[in-house]
């Protein structure tokens, strides 16, 4: 199985830096699947779950699997007992405000963020004490060192780069490895399924290059 270009921990690390650059003090990573890390936010304990998974349909909305995953993660955080989490930290943090816990679900895609927000709005009458905050933190961040003459962006998020590709300002072929393959995958995740032909071209070219490097000819 090929290694993913960005692991879940890459997303978690970036979110950690974003929150630390605000007024969140990092406490540690979680061993519980229900959240990824914890912070001290003022005197409140804050737990953070990062969910980078999403797929968009060809008309631009999230697919059913994404919807299920978003709702499941939201409810897992919602039903997580804050008291139990606070108990785990209380001995190390005597000043901790024990009555309240901040729960944060971080998403990386705007469509997913907005659709989950709408679901939460619809549920607001049914959930009396929603204590889950949503944050939209796009990641990965791709440095623009390949289209500086064509485009004013200093860095790209995936959605910005898709916009630049679609307008013809950035050409897929000019995006360096390993981001080129990654962006082809992301275009497909965003509903542009016609990209399979371009991937085939790349694979064929890679195969040719491999043979020349070995100074061998393929068997006929």
């Amino acid at each position, binding site marked *: 199985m090929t290694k993913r270009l960005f692991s879940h921990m890459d997303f978690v690390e970036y979110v950690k830096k974003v929150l630390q*650059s605000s007024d969140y003090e990092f406490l540690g990573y979680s061993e519980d699947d229900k959240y990824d890390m914890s912070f001290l936010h003022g005197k409140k304990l804050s737990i953070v779950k990062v969910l980078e998974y999403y797929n968009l349909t060809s008309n*631009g909305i999230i697919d059913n699997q994404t919807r299920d995953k978003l709702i499941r993660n939201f409810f897992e955080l919602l039903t997580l007992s804050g008291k139990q989490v606070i108990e785990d930290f209380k001995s190390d943090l005597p000043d901790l405000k024990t009555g309240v816990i901040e729960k944060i679900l971080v998403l990386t895609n*705007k469509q997913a963020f907005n659709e989950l927000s709408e679901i939460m709005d619809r549920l607001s009458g049914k959930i009396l004490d929603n204590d889950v905050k949503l944050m939209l933190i796009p990641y990965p961040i791709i440095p623009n060192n390949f289209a500086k*003459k064509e485009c004013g*962006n200093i860095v790209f998020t995936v959605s910005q780069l898709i916009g630049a590709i679609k307008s013809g*300002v950035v050409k897929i072929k000019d995006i360096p490895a390993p981001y080129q393959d990654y962006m082809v995958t992301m275009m497909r995740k965003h509903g542009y399924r*016609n990209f399979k032909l371009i991937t085939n071209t790349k694979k064929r070219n890679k195969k040719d290059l491999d043979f020349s490097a070995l100074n061998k000819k393929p068997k006929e």
Partner: protein
Amino acid sequence: MIQVNISSRHSKILNRQPIQFSDAKNKHECLVKDGNYSFDASIDGNGRAYNVDVPAEREAFYNLNATEGPIYVLANTKNTTGKWETQNEIAEAKFGWERIQVEYNKQYPLIGKYEEVDAEGGPTIISLDTSYVITNEEEAKSRFDDGDLVDGGNKTRYQDSMMKLPGPDSLSVFIENIFDGDNGEPNGVKVRETDGTITHFDHQAWMEHD
């Protein structure tokens, strides 16, 4: 005598007439131009296509729409087949076109084409969308953030990004989030608070990837 220099005011020279979707579609089918472009069917008899990656065409496109300040180009459809042939494809494009003219009150919708090279080295059109220009920054951000209704009005789709052209000689910038910086810096975190209100805060973590 008062002299008016209209040489730089492209928009005053070109004859533009608001046209219906069917006429725009017909004009676009007669267009012979490869690559990516924004096609403005309202100009002259045949319309004109602009590739914003070509400096002269980008400048002409800017001057067509404004004389100063940034302009914003927003799509309001998401075509992923690259053609307008089936009933659904045509219906979506027509809906997008009419929405731009009637609801968004923009008289000159555009047809945006995105083309790639396929495995055989030939062109494959990936996407054919309707789009439009907004010259007011606040209006552009608000429209972009509101998204567009799809699926019979049951869902809202949010475009990946919108394009900003800061001036006739400037490079285009792509914006995903209305809190992004002037050069698209992803420095704003959008937050849905527990009571449903939307707030945001800034950060500089993206700079480590610069």
